């Protein structure tokens, strides 16, 4: 790039300044040195102030508190946790809850987003308009508001567990305590079903490879998708039947005030999942739409001119190119979803921010350490995402001269 690097070029004409002032290299060094001094001085000021403030106020500092007993309970935890666990464990609980909501949110938002994005390009006017309305409504309303809406205006209106809405065919119950669903308890022999499932996946993979090889060899195409689907569903089902239904269902029962047994999807969790999924899906829809449109019409025309049908053109020419455009912004939406999951604090879902920057911060009073750890955690997420994106971009970049 011939972008000029002569930063700070002034034009004080005639003034007899020493020659080195006009040398961009020297000028750059001076400018940088000033900047560095400014930064260091600012950082020093902040740090020394903080230390002085902490000392003056006799506030405990350091990360030792992570070892201390937490003393409080958390309503949802993926690992063993009780009030006897340490603050460090509480951090882990929050982190895992954040990751849980992020993974599920990403999964659903991707599906909904792709459907809506493709619908927005549909030749069907009605479908296009419905998708547009969906995107325009949910994109332009703050996600926090949406979370609160689902939590306080929709889920909170559900009846109490005793009068909960039964889905008897599922054995589930929907109440203001959330969605309680039966839990499948595998019994002896269930591992065979799991193995069958793994085998099915491997088999599908092999079939796909065989089909491709056959087509390459003889030119005959093969319906890989349907055959694969049949294998993946059929094989485990078969194993399940053969093993004599090796699974019991733990149905939730109302005991005392609440349901016991089963899996409880708490309203906080449901509201967060719903809100994040809908909000992010609108962004994904736009990304997908833009990605598909970024492939020039000339590409489709060239494929048509070669005699490829629209379906094949999409599969062989459009999608491979669109995905390159879609994936980087898609990853940053995933990151956004993860960051937005911190709004859980507003509706009481025990995510990282709620458990750690909330309860732990209050119980220990060590604001500086707690906030630093929290921010660092999110920074790690975003650095990991950035690393992935760089890797992806360098791998997928169209080869050019």
């Amino acid at each position, binding site marked *: 790039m011939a972008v000029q690097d002569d930063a700070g070029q002034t034009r004080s004409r005639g003034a007899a300044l020493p020659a080195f002032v006009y040398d961009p290299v020297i000028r750059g060094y001076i400018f940088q040195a000033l900047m560095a001094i400014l930064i260091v001085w600012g950082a020093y000021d902040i740090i020394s102030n903080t230390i002085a403030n902490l000392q003056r*106020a006799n506030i405990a500092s350091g990360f030792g508190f992570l070892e201390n007993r937490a*003393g409080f309970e958390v309503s949802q935890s993926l690992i063993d946790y009780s009030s006897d666990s340490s603050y460090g464990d509480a951090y882990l609980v929050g982190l895992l809850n954040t990751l849980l909501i992020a993974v599920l949110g990403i999964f659903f938002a991707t599906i909904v987003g792709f459907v809506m994005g493709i619908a927005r390009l549909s030749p069907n006017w009605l479908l296009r308009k419905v998708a547009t309305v969906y995107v325009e409504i949910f994109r332009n309303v703050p996600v926090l508001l949406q979370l609160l809406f689902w939590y306080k205006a929709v889920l909170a209106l559900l009846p109490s567990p005793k009068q909960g809405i039964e889905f008897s065919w599922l054995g589930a119950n929907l109440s203001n305590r959330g969605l309680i669903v039966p839990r499948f308890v595998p019994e002896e022999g269930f591992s065979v079903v799991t193995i069958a499932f793994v085998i099915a996946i491997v088999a599908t993979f092999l079939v796909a490879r065989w089909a491709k090889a056959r087509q390459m060899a003889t030119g005959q195409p093969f319906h890989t998708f349907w055959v694969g689907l049949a294998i993946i569903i059929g094989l485990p089902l078969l194993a399940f039947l053969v093993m004599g239904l090796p699974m019991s269902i733990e149905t939730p029962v109302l005991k005392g*005030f*609440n349901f016991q047994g089963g899996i409880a999807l708490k309203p*906080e969790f449901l509201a967060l999942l719903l809100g994040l999924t809908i909000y992010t899906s609108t962004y994904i829809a736009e990304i997908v739409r833009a990605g598909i449109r970024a492939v020039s019409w000339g590409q489709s025309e060239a494929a048509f001119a070669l005699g490829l049908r629209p379906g094949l053109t999409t599969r062989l020419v459009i999608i491979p190119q669109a995905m390159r455009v879609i994936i980087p912004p898609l990853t940053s939406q995933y990151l956004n979803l993860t960051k937005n999951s911190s709004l859980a604090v*507003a509706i*009481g879902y025990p995510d990282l921010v*709620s458990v750690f920057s*909330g309860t732990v911060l209050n119980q220990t009073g060590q604001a500086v350490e707690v906030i630093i750890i929290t921010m660092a955690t999110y920074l790690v997420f975003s650095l990991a995402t950035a690393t992935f994106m760089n890797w992806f971009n360098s791998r997928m970049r169209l080869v050019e001269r």
Partner: protein
Amino acid sequence: TTLDDVKKKGFVQCGVSTGLAGFSNPDDKGDWTGLDVDYCRAVASAVFGDPKAVKFSPLSAKERFTALQSGEIDVLSRNTTWTMSRDTQMGIVFAGVTYYDGQGFMVPKSLGVTSAKDLDGASVCVQQGTTTELNLTDYFKASGMTFNPVVFEKLDEVNAAYDSGRCDVYTTDSSGLYAIRLTMSNPDNHMVLPEIISKEPLGPSVRQGDEQWFAIAKWVYYALLNAEEMGITQANVEEMKSSENPNVKRLLGVDGNFGESIGLDADWAVKVIKGVGNYGEIFERNVGKNTPLGIARGLNALWTEGGLQYAPPIR
């Protein structure tokens, strides 16, 4: 020093809650009222002779300690429980106990529960990061019961969640329970269970390291108690100046200048009592029998009347 700073800016900056009836709550006009608020007004009266020379910062549970540590507020008077760790590790000191409280439970009457012992398996609404949250855990653990916490950062949110039926039980300091019950859509449907599961001495706190300001905070509180003990009220404080009782004389600065030693005028206590009345008056005005909260003095009665409120003498 804090006192100089306060004098320079012309008001006391006081941290209160974001809204708890009877303790610190903005009324319809936006004026703050309540027991915690009146304590701050008492401090302002002591310094400036004007109970209005105070500004209030509504703080969430999370913000309260840093606000005090950083000097954003001068006094924290926000139904805060005095605990050892707070007194020693967080750079703050408690000036006294303005309200002896204990944690209790509130349930909807329809739940059919009459004792906290029946709460096994319940969902419990509780505010995040409070001693309440810890006591709750300890209590259930000690009683061999389980529970499901539903925690929110802000009091309103906890209230709303309990009111909408998200949880079976509400727990906080029992004074708070009475206050909160009033805000439920139908207060008569809820009852407070008899068990008190913890000691909750609530009191104002100031920053560590400024002995003078700490002394002011302490002695304003003691002045309120002594005044009640001696029968000095907002109404009769001027006449009492001519009282013969040497204790009264010392308190009101007629005899000796005790104010000087803490950087205040001799008649500092007169200003305090004129501004807000004595402890008993404050109590009755904000949370007492004739308020919607209707709380009895109980532990908060003077020691002379079987309670715990006891102030060192001024001499």
